[in-house]
Protein backbone atom coordinates (compact mmCIF):
# COMPACT_ATOMS: atom_id res chain seq x y z
CA UNK A 1 0.00 0.00 0.00
CA UNK A 2 1.19 3.46 -0.85
CA UNK A 3 1.88 5.50 2.24
CA UNK A 4 2.46 8.70 0.27
CA UNK A 5 0.13 9.44 -2.61
CA UNK A 6 0.21 12.04 -5.32
CA UNK A 7 -3.06 11.44 -7.08
CA UNK A 8 -2.53 13.83 -9.97
CA UNK A 9 0.06 12.51 -12.44
CA UNK A 10 0.13 15.84 -14.24
CA UNK A 11 -0.87 19.48 -13.89
CA UNK A 12 -0.87 22.27 -16.46
CA UNK A 13 -0.83 25.92 -15.40
CA UNK A 14 -0.51 29.25 -17.17
CA UNK A 15 2.59 31.34 -16.48
CA UNK A 16 1.99 33.85 -13.69
CA UNK A 17 -0.82 31.85 -12.09
CA UNK A 18 -0.67 29.69 -9.00
CA UNK A 19 0.37 26.04 -9.16
CA UNK A 20 -0.98 23.79 -6.42
CA UNK A 21 0.47 20.31 -6.07
CA UNK A 22 -1.15 17.94 -3.63
CA UNK A 23 0.05 15.02 -1.55
CA UNK A 24 -1.78 12.69 0.84
CA UNK A 25 -0.29 10.33 3.37
CA UNK A 26 -1.67 7.47 5.40
CA UNK A 27 0.85 6.91 8.20
CA UNK A 28 0.05 9.09 11.21
CA UNK A 29 3.62 8.60 12.46
CA UNK A 30 5.04 10.74 9.67
CA UNK A 31 6.28 14.01 11.15
CA UNK A 32 8.50 15.49 8.47
CA UNK A 33 7.53 16.24 4.89
CA UNK A 34 9.55 17.34 1.90
CA UNK A 35 9.12 18.38 -1.70
CA UNK A 36 11.61 17.65 -4.45
CA UNK A 37 11.77 18.95 -7.99
CA UNK A 38 13.18 16.88 -10.82
CA UNK A 39 14.13 17.99 -14.31
CA UNK A 40 14.63 15.37 -17.07
CA UNK A 41 18.04 13.70 -17.04
CA UNK A 42 18.90 15.22 -13.64
CA UNK A 43 18.67 14.04 -10.07
CA UNK A 44 15.87 15.25 -7.78
CA UNK A 45 16.57 18.55 -6.03
CA UNK A 46 15.39 19.29 -2.52
CA UNK A 47 12.95 22.18 -2.61
CA UNK A 48 11.28 22.78 0.74
CA UNK A 49 10.29 20.89 3.87
CA UNK A 50 7.93 21.19 6.80
CA UNK A 51 7.85 19.68 10.24
CA UNK A 52 4.58 18.47 11.76
CA UNK A 53 4.79 21.14 14.45
CA UNK A 54 4.07 23.73 11.76
CA UNK A 55 1.24 24.13 9.29
CA UNK A 56 3.01 26.39 6.81
CA UNK A 57 6.50 27.03 5.55
CA UNK A 58 7.52 29.58 2.93
CA UNK A 59 10.59 29.98 0.80
CA UNK A 60 10.29 32.64 -1.85
CA UNK A 61 7.67 31.63 -4.41
CA UNK A 62 7.21 28.23 -2.75
CA UNK A 63 4.92 27.57 0.19
CA UNK A 64 4.10 24.21 1.71
CA UNK A 65 0.92 23.76 3.74
CA UNK A 66 0.34 20.86 6.09
CA UNK A 67 -3.08 19.71 7.30
CA UNK A 68 -2.37 16.99 9.83
CA UNK A 69 -5.99 16.13 10.55
CA UNK A 70 -6.59 15.48 6.86
CA UNK A 71 -3.14 13.91 6.37
CA UNK A 72 -2.65 16.23 3.45
CA UNK A 73 0.04 18.61 2.28
CA UNK A 74 0.25 20.90 -0.67
CA UNK A 75 2.92 22.89 -2.45
CA UNK A 76 1.95 26.30 -3.80
CA UNK A 77 4.07 28.03 -6.40
CA UNK A 78 3.24 31.70 -6.94
CA UNK A 79 3.73 33.01 -9.53
CA UNK A 80 4.44 30.00 -11.70
CA UNK A 81 7.22 30.32 -14.26
CA UNK A 82 8.07 28.16 -17.28
CA UNK A 83 11.27 27.10 -15.50
CA UNK A 84 9.11 25.48 -12.83
CA UNK A 85 8.07 22.83 -15.35
CA UNK A 86 9.34 19.60 -13.82
CA UNK A 87 8.23 16.53 -11.92
CA UNK A 88 7.55 17.22 -8.25
CA UNK A 89 7.89 14.50 -5.65
CA UNK A 90 6.41 14.59 -2.19
CA UNK A 91 8.23 12.63 0.55
CA UNK A 92 7.61 11.87 4.21
CA UNK A 93 9.41 10.38 7.18
CA UNK A 94 8.77 9.74 10.86
CA UNK A 95 11.25 10.00 13.70
CA UNK A 96 9.50 7.32 15.74
CA UNK A 97 9.54 4.96 12.77
CA UNK A 98 13.33 4.80 13.01
CA UNK A 99 12.94 2.94 16.29
CA UNK A 100 11.37 0.07 14.40
CA UNK A 101 14.65 -0.55 12.64
CA UNK A 102 15.31 -1.41 9.03
CA UNK A 103 14.39 1.07 6.35
CA UNK A 104 11.18 2.27 8.00
CA UNK A 105 12.74 5.51 9.12
CA UNK A 106 13.76 6.44 5.60
CA UNK A 107 12.04 8.88 3.29
CA UNK A 108 8.97 7.50 1.55
CA UNK A 109 8.31 9.11 -1.83
CA UNK A 110 5.14 9.64 -3.80
CA UNK A 111 5.02 8.79 -7.48
CA UNK A 112 5.34 12.38 -8.60
CA UNK A 113 3.30 15.03 -10.40
CA UNK A 114 4.48 16.48 -13.69
CA UNK A 115 3.93 20.23 -13.74
CA UNK A 116 3.83 22.08 -17.05
CA UNK A 117 3.83 25.86 -16.93
CA UNK A 118 2.78 27.33 -20.25
CA UNK A 119 4.05 30.75 -21.36
Amino acid at each position, binding site marked *: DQQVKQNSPSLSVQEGRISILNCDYTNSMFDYFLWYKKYPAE*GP*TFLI*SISSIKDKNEDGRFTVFLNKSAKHLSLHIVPSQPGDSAVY*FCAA*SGRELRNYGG*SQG*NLIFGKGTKLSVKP
Partner: protein
Amino acid sequence: DAGITQSPRHKVTETGTPVTLRCHQTENHRYMYWYRQDPGHGLRLIHYSYGVKDTDKGEVSDGYSVSRSKTEDFLLTLESATSSQTSVYFCAISDRDTGDAQYFGPGTRLLVL
Protein backbone atom coordinates in the same frame (compact mmCIF):
# COMPACT_ATOMS: atom_id res chain seq x y z
CA ASP B 1 25.06 21.58 -5.12
CA ALA B 2 26.06 18.64 -2.97
CA GLY B 3 29.23 16.98 -4.23
CA ILE B 4 27.83 13.72 -5.52
CA THR B 5 28.95 11.98 -8.66
CA GLN B 6 27.75 8.75 -10.21
CA SER B 7 29.53 6.55 -12.69
CA PRO B 8 28.89 5.50 -15.30
CA ARG B 9 26.15 7.92 -16.32
CA HIS B 10 24.86 5.57 -19.00
CA LYS B 11 25.30 1.85 -19.46
CA VAL B 12 23.97 -0.80 -21.80
CA THR B 13 24.51 -4.39 -20.79
CA GLU B 14 23.21 -7.85 -21.53
CA THR B 15 21.04 -10.07 -19.39
CA GLY B 16 23.08 -12.20 -17.03
CA THR B 17 26.12 -9.95 -16.83
CA PRO B 18 27.27 -8.35 -13.58
CA VAL B 19 27.06 -4.58 -13.32
CA THR B 20 28.49 -2.22 -10.71
CA LEU B 21 27.42 1.38 -10.30
CA ARG B 22 29.49 3.78 -8.26
CA CYS B 23 28.46 6.72 -6.13
CA HIS B 24 31.10 9.11 -4.83
CA GLN B 25 30.53 11.99 -2.42
CA THR B 26 32.80 14.76 -1.21
CA GLU B 27 30.49 15.95 1.59
CA ASN B 28 31.59 13.45 4.24
CA HIS B 29 27.93 12.60 4.91
CA ARG B 30 27.22 9.53 7.00
CA TYR B 31 24.21 8.18 5.13
CA MET B 32 24.15 7.05 1.53
CA TYR B 33 21.29 5.57 -0.49
CA TRP B 34 20.54 3.89 -3.78
CA TYR B 35 17.16 4.43 -5.44
CA ARG B 36 15.65 3.40 -8.70
CA GLN B 37 13.13 5.47 -10.61
CA ASP B 38 10.64 3.86 -12.93
CA PRO B 39 7.56 5.26 -14.66
CA GLY B 40 4.54 4.91 -12.42
CA HIS B 41 6.61 4.02 -9.37
CA GLY B 42 8.41 7.17 -8.34
CA LEU B 43 11.58 6.71 -6.31
CA ARG B 44 12.05 3.38 -4.58
CA LEU B 45 14.81 2.65 -2.10
CA ILE B 46 17.07 -0.29 -2.98
CA HIS B 47 19.69 -0.24 -0.21
CA TYR B 48 21.15 2.30 2.12
CA SER B 49 24.23 2.71 4.31
CA TYR B 50 24.53 4.27 7.74
CA GLY B 51 28.30 4.07 7.93
CA VAL B 52 31.35 2.33 6.55
CA LYS B 53 30.51 -1.37 6.14
CA ASP B 54 27.04 -0.75 7.60
CA THR B 55 24.26 -1.33 5.10
CA ASP B 56 20.63 -2.38 5.11
CA LYS B 57 17.93 -3.33 2.65
CA GLY B 58 15.30 -1.06 1.25
CA GLU B 59 11.96 -1.66 -0.43
CA VAL B 60 13.27 -3.29 -3.63
CA SER B 61 16.55 -4.97 -2.68
CA ASP B 62 16.15 -8.35 -4.43
CA GLY B 63 18.81 -8.84 -7.09
CA TYR B 64 21.02 -6.06 -5.74
CA SER B 65 23.94 -5.91 -3.34
CA VAL B 66 25.91 -2.97 -2.00
CA SER B 67 29.22 -2.24 -0.39
CA ARG B 68 30.70 0.72 1.39
CA SER B 69 34.38 0.39 2.24
CA LYS B 70 35.00 4.14 2.50
CA THR B 71 32.85 7.02 3.67
CA GLU B 72 32.87 8.59 0.24
CA ASP B 73 32.02 5.58 -1.93
CA PHE B 74 28.87 3.46 -2.14
CA LEU B 75 28.72 0.73 -4.76
CA LEU B 76 25.60 -0.92 -6.13
CA THR B 77 26.05 -4.31 -7.80
CA LEU B 78 23.62 -6.22 -9.95
CA GLU B 79 25.05 -9.72 -9.70
CA SER B 80 23.27 -10.97 -12.82
CA ALA B 81 21.39 -8.21 -14.59
CA THR B 82 17.83 -8.81 -15.76
CA SER B 83 15.63 -6.75 -18.09
CA SER B 84 13.47 -5.78 -15.09
CA GLN B 85 16.47 -3.90 -13.72
CA THR B 86 16.44 -1.50 -16.66
CA SER B 87 15.93 1.77 -14.85
CA VAL B 88 17.42 5.07 -13.80
CA TYR B 89 19.46 4.71 -10.62
CA PHE B 90 20.03 7.56 -8.23
CA CYS B 91 22.43 7.81 -5.36
CA ALA B 92 21.62 10.13 -2.47
CA ILE B 93 23.30 11.29 0.71
CA SER B 94 22.20 12.76 4.01
CA ASP B 95 24.03 13.91 7.09
CA ARG B 96 21.97 13.80 10.26
CA ASP B 97 19.43 11.05 9.83
CA THR B 98 17.81 8.67 7.35
CA GLY B 99 14.59 10.66 7.53
CA ASP B 100 16.26 13.97 6.88
CA ALA B 101 16.56 15.80 3.58
CA GLN B 102 18.58 13.79 1.10
CA TYR B 103 20.66 15.18 -1.74
CA PHE B 104 20.75 13.31 -5.00
CA GLY B 105 23.34 12.57 -7.62
CA PRO B 106 22.72 13.04 -11.36
CA GLY B 107 21.67 9.44 -11.96
CA THR B 108 22.79 6.46 -14.02
CA ARG B 109 20.62 5.26 -16.88
CA LEU B 110 20.93 1.47 -17.20
CA LEU B 111 19.55 -0.56 -20.06
CA VAL B 112 19.61 -4.35 -19.78
CA LEU B 113 19.04 -6.08 -23.11
